[in-house]
């Protein structure tokens, strides 16, 4: 028992010490010739795995463009909405390109690039349901991915009688709706668009829009050079029409011209 405790404390101490000062991430990327990017693998059309388990989506295309213009290879790491920021903070990845939205809480722990795409978050449910504003949510159950911006927003605007059911990832959130475990689902319009293409047993239509959500690249704090490089590339991709092409390809809508931070 005592020996066990000593080992635990030794392990803890090692963990604390191992976060030593290190070189700039941009230098590391160039030295390793490898850009490590956190992407989602269950969030079409942003990041998802195809039938052959290859990752695809607008996030993956943007990650590839970034790596190509940096002259390095890309290494994709699958993450969930809930664990993507810890992955970045613990430096398991260099960037998050995982349909990442911005809010004040997140801005305290990581930095955000210029936006590269946009969708909107809303409440979706079956067509016969009479819900058109937040107050109507009372008495209904709504699934949402824990920790996502739609969760934070829904938590704020939902009336006391609303039953918010939080799931670990987007798959659980959407399955809870399609299997009839909840009345409605709070998610992005693109996720619903993709879901409806698969023709599930329960159809979801927009009940009301919560907010627009541009997607940003997440960068660790204190990485000014990497941030500058990422922003330069995003500006070029936007200017040469690449981002618009990608938006048309994956989100079925042109990139909004007034998209800004």
């Amino acid at each position: 028992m005592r020996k066990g405790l000593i080992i635990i404390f030794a392990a803890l101490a090692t963990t604390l010490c191992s976060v030593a000062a290190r070189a700039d991430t941009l230098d590391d990327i160039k030295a390793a010739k490898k850009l490590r990017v956190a992407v989602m693998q269950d969030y079409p059309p942003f990041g998802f795995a195809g039938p052959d388990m290859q990752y695809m989506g607008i996030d993956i295309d943007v990650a590839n463009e970034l790596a190509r213009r940096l002259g390095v290879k890309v290494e994709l790491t699958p993450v969930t909405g809930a664990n993507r920021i810890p992955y970045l903070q613990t430096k398991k990845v260099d960037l998050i390109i995982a349909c990442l939205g911005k809010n004040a809480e997140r801005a305290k722990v990581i930095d955000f690039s210029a936006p590269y795409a946009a969708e909107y978050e809303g409440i979706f449910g079956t067509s016969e349901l009479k819900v058109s504003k937040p107050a109507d949510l009372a008495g209904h159950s709504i699934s949402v991915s824990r920790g996502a911006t739609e969760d934070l927003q829904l938590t704020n605007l939902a009336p006391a009688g609303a039953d918010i059911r939080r799931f670990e990832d987007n798959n659980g959130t959407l399955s809870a709706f399609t299997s009839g475990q909840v009345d409605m689902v709070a998610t992005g319009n693109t996720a619903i668009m993709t879901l409806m293409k698969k023709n599930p047993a329960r159809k979801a239509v927009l009940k009301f829009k919560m907010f627009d959500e541009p997607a940003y690249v997440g960068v660790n704090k204190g990485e000014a050079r990497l941030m500058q490089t990422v922003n330069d590339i995003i500006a070029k991709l936007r200017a040469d029409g690449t981002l618009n092409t990608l938006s048309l390809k994956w989100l079925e809508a042109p990139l909004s011209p007034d998209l800004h931070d």
Partner: protein
Amino acid sequence: MATISLDFSAIFNYTPVLLRGIFLTIELTLVGALGGFVVGVLCAWARTNAPPRARYPFVAYVEFIRNTPFLVQLFFLFFGLPSLGIRLSGFQASCLAIILNTGAYNSEIMRAGIDATSKGQIEAAASLGLTRVLIFFHVVLVPALKRVWPALASQVVLMMLDSSVCSQVSVEELTFAGSFIQSRNFRSFETYLIITCIYFILSYIARRFLLKSDEWLLVRRKVTHG
């Protein structure tokens, strides 16, 4: 070396979420311990005393549960059953999954204890005129439980730790509380350190309590005739 600033106050703002999580974890554990015990005894009885053909369904159940992951069983109950028109809430599905799972493991443990009963003891009890039910209870089951009690106790603790999986179907137990708090304050280290410590304390207390509990739960009482 970079210094890490620990900020535990970021977690104590969420004390109600934590307390609710602890309460739900204890609730799931109690439900699983009691339900799993009853299911375990029933299956162990059926697998050792029922007519051979009637044993098959119990064998099938135990083998099925012991050879599939708990998370998949839970997902099947929660996401799968609604297709058949059976809609269980996250909590109901979790309770059922925990009882079915613990019951299967308990039945294997108890069966081992029961198999160790010597035939002579049963014959001696029968010659004293005890009924089959009394023989099973006093001569077979209670001594068997005494033999395997540490294994049963450890099964309850394992099940309590496994109940963290129920966070996946939106049951707001301790792991859910941890992930919820972490998704709000991004203090992964402090949050999961505290959650880990709470699990450790809960398991430690549960194990201590359960290992002692057979002394007063399984007291040998004087058996009067029939």
